[in-house]
Each structure stands twice: as C-alpha cells, then as structure tokens.
C-alpha cells in the first residue's frame, strides 16, 4: 500500500494493549523484533508504548525468517544476542510462523524470556481495528476454560486418551483421538505471562498437535500460512479465501488424501515434497477472538477451527517421532466441535462465551454481549 492515512495516535491504543499482553514491568529491557516488511509507523507505535511503560526498548530489524517448519533458518548473531539479553521480546511479523525456531526455543528455555508475537501481515490497518483491543484478562480466561475442557480428567503420569469431533454442514465430519498432554496453548494458561512462555497478541488459540487416530473428512473455507499464498487473493496476505473450489482432506488412519482445485494442487505439491509423514494430521486448533478479521486472521477468530498435516517442529514426543518438514494449514469458518461428546463450539459459536464466570470478567470491560458479538467480516 502506498498511501498511509494513519498517524501514530491511531495505532497507540493497540500498541498499548500489546504492553498489557506482555505485562511489562518498569525498567525491563524490551527488544522489539521487526522484520523488514513491517511498516516503520507500526514499529514506532510499539516503541512509544514500551517507552510509556518506563522500559528500555531496542528495535532489531532483519530480513524475515524462514517458515518455522523449514529447518536451518539461523538469524545473524546480533539478533540472537539481543533476544537472549532481553526480559521481554516483542516480535512484529508479517507471517505468523516466520520465526527462527531454534533461537526462540533457546531464548525462552535458557534465558528466561517472555515473548509476545504480533502477526500483522504487512498492513497498518491491522492495528487500528477492534480485534487489536481485545482485553488480555478476558482472552486468558476464555482460553484457559477451553484448555481445561480439552485436557479434563488427564493426569501425569497417566495415559488418558480423549476424543475430538468436528462436524459441519459443508460435509465435514472428522473424529480424532489424542493424548491431552499434547494439547497446546499460547501463553494464556495463567493470568500472567511467565518466563519461558510466549503468547500471541489478541490471538490465543487452543489446539492439539499430536494424534493417536484420525478418520473422516474436513472441508475447508480457506488455506493459510504459506509464503506462496501471498500471491493468491487476498493478495499480500498468507490467507487464501475464498477458494475457487472446496479443498477436502479425507483422513483414514491419520493419513489424508487431498482433493480440490488448483489450491489443493498447491497443497499436494507441498506435501509431496515432505516425505513419508507429510500427510499425517498434525493439528486441530481454534481461535477465541470474536473480532479477528476473517479474511486476514481467520485462525484467531473465535469458533474458526484450523487443521494441519505434516508435523510440528521443536518438540518430539518420543524417539520414534514421525517427522516431516511440512506443516500446512486449512481452516473452516463454522462448525460444531465436541471433546468427549461435550460441546465446545455450537454452530460456530464458542460455548464458553456463555459461561457465567467468563461473562462476569468480561463485564469489567463493557457489555459482554457486545464484547462477544462476532464481527460481521
């Protein structure tokens, strides 16, 4: 976009909200990592917000990283050292998964970092929209409630297996079983972000990234998360929506067959290059933000579910892990989702939005009906 109609003041409310998401304490050292695709105005707004909290900011800019499931991306040494030295890292990214995964892991585990990831596409608008003002406290509680539902009854040690089922009118009906130890959250487990954790700005998700079994079909409304998708409409975003024709993943014993038009062909090519385990179900997840824009941030949107095949880098469950250098996504706007037959999404709406405890906390920030009302786009 050539014309930028925004001023710093337009971006500051969202930038301040970022500070709430990482809970900055006065005097902390904060590194803002902005790749070369992030508009400078956005970087300045974040810098100003960090400064307002009495922290010591430094901005670090490099070229964008590779996608996390492609191995071997290493940042320059200065980038690493800056990250390790910080108390808090804020990552402004054009594509969500474009990180240096090894460095990030070391930073959090060995160097006590708290991290906030802010995927923005390359648009300034993203920060002027309502989704970017969603209160941390509400998002944390919503996420925790869902996480508790998805892990309910699990113990350590213990080998409880739970069942997740997704059904939608478009032909989707997928049932999978999972070890709840591998349920994933993004830094929203506690009212406070702890060293070693990262969270996603206004974009909590809850998901599973390892399955014992998966059978059935999922039919997508859109795809996301690949650099190649930026060329497809909407241009410049890694989201592809709408699709020229539906893309279907048909699972049998965890492995899937991909059907659809030219978008499906793109996925097939990615998967074909990924080795023997590239077609295994590797993720079912949902978003929790009712205001997240469906076109550009579908995976953050409450009640939207997303799915991946391949595997997830960084952690291996056991020595026999099935590893694939692929983790490719599709998403479904509206479905019903059950965990062990308990409803989690009912006709596209998160059941937890009607939880009395959640509504009580939401009331601190305004009318809960308004806060949980789904944005129309």
């Amino acid at each position, binding site marked *: 976009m050539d014309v930028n109609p925004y001023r710093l003041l337009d971006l500051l409310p969202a930038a301040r909200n970022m500070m709430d998401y990482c809970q900055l304490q006065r005097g902390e050292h904060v590194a803002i990592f902005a790749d070369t695709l992030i508009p400078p105005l956005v970087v300045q707004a974040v810098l100003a917000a960090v400064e307002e909290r009495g922290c010591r900011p430094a901005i670090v800019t490099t070229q964008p990283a590779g996608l996390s499931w492609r191995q071997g991306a290493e940042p320059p040494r200065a980038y690493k050292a800056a990250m390790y030295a910080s108390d808090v890292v804020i990552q402004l990214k054009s594509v969500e998964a474009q990180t240096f995964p090894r460095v990030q892991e*070391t930073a959090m*585990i*060995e160097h*006590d970092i708290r991290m906030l990831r802010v995927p923005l596409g390359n648009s300034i608008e993203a920060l002027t929209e309502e989704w970017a003002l969603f209160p941390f406290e509400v998002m944390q509680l919503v996420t925790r409630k869902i996480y*508790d539902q998805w892990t309910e009854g699990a*113990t350590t*040690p213990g080998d409880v297996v739970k069942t997740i089922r997704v059904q939608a009118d478009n032909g989707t009906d997928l049932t999978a079983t999972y070890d709840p130890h*591998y349920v994933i959250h993004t830094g929203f487990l506690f009212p406070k972000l702890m060293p*070693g954790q*990262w969270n996603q700005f206004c974009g909590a998700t809850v998901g599973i990234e390892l399955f014992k079994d998966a059978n059935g079909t999922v039919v997508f409304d859109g795809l996301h998360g690949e650099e190649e998708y930026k060329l497809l409409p909407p241009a410049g975003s890694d989201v592809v929506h709408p699709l020229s024709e539906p893309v279907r993943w048909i699972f049998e014993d965890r492995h899937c067959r991909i059907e659809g038009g030219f978008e499906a062909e793109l996925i097939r090519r990615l998967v074909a290059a990924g080795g023997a385990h590239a077609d295994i179900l590797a993720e079912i997840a949902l978003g929790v933000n009712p205001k997240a824009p469906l076109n550009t941030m579908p995976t953050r949107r409450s009640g939207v579910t997303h799915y991946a095949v391949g595997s997830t880098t960084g952690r291996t469950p056991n020595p026999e892990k099935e590893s694939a250098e692929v983790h490719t996504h599709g998403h479904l706007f509206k479905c019903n989702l059950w965990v062990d037959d308990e409803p989690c999404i009912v006709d596209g709406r998160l059941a937890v939005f009607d939880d009395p405890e959640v509504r009580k906390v939401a009331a601190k920030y305004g009318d809960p009906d308004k806060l949980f009302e789904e944005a129309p786009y």
Partner: protein
Amino acid sequence: MSQPLHEILDELLRKAVSTVEGRETLMRYNHTLNFEVLNGDSFHVEIIDGEADVQTGASSPRPIAEAHNIKGNEEVFRTWFAGEARFSDLIHDQRIYPQAAHTTKRHIDNWIVKLVRLGQGKPSLKDEY
C-alpha cells in the same frame, strides 16, 4: 559406581536454594516433575511452596496442570545435570522428550533449567557480558 540421578538432582536443588535467587525461583510454581528414564530408574521431584522433595519412581497421578513428565535416557539426564549440555539443545537434538505440546510446559522447562543452572553455580546467561 556413579551417583544415582535422583541424588544428583537433589544436590543441585539444595545448592540452588542456598542462594536468594534460587529460593525465589523455587517459589515460582507448585509442580511435580517426573523424570522418566527410558533405560534406567525413573524419579520425580515434587515442589510445593518452595520445598523440593526428590523421590525415586514415578509420582502418583496429578492433574496435568500440576505435573510434567520429561523422558530421556540416563546418560542424557547426566549430561544435562553435569552442565555439559543445555536442555534446549537436547530437545532439539531429540535426546530429551518433554511430554507436552511445544508451548504447554515451556515455562516449567525454563524453571527447572534455571534451578539446575543455579545448582551448578552458573550465573544466568544474561549476566555473562
């Protein structure tokens, strides 16, 4: 004969709590950590209100919000406890296997890593410059 792993961990935690930073760090969470030794004797530590209790065997089952399980071979745990390898590298090199999704227990990973390091008398890496 080499010292059993649970004793090594116990000593590391004792040394850690002999420092102010160690005591503060230990207070950070209440959590049980199971160390599942794939080719040896498993052990666990229960940390409650800043008190650490290391025992042999597996802990009794806890809700997963309160407990974590880390799997690996005996020699890998030794390498880590001896300060010869970093936990994050062992995960990356697929020699140690935290039984959790890659985000879920990272704060606990960071916590035990920090406690082990304090027990080894190593400064936090931030201060090395």
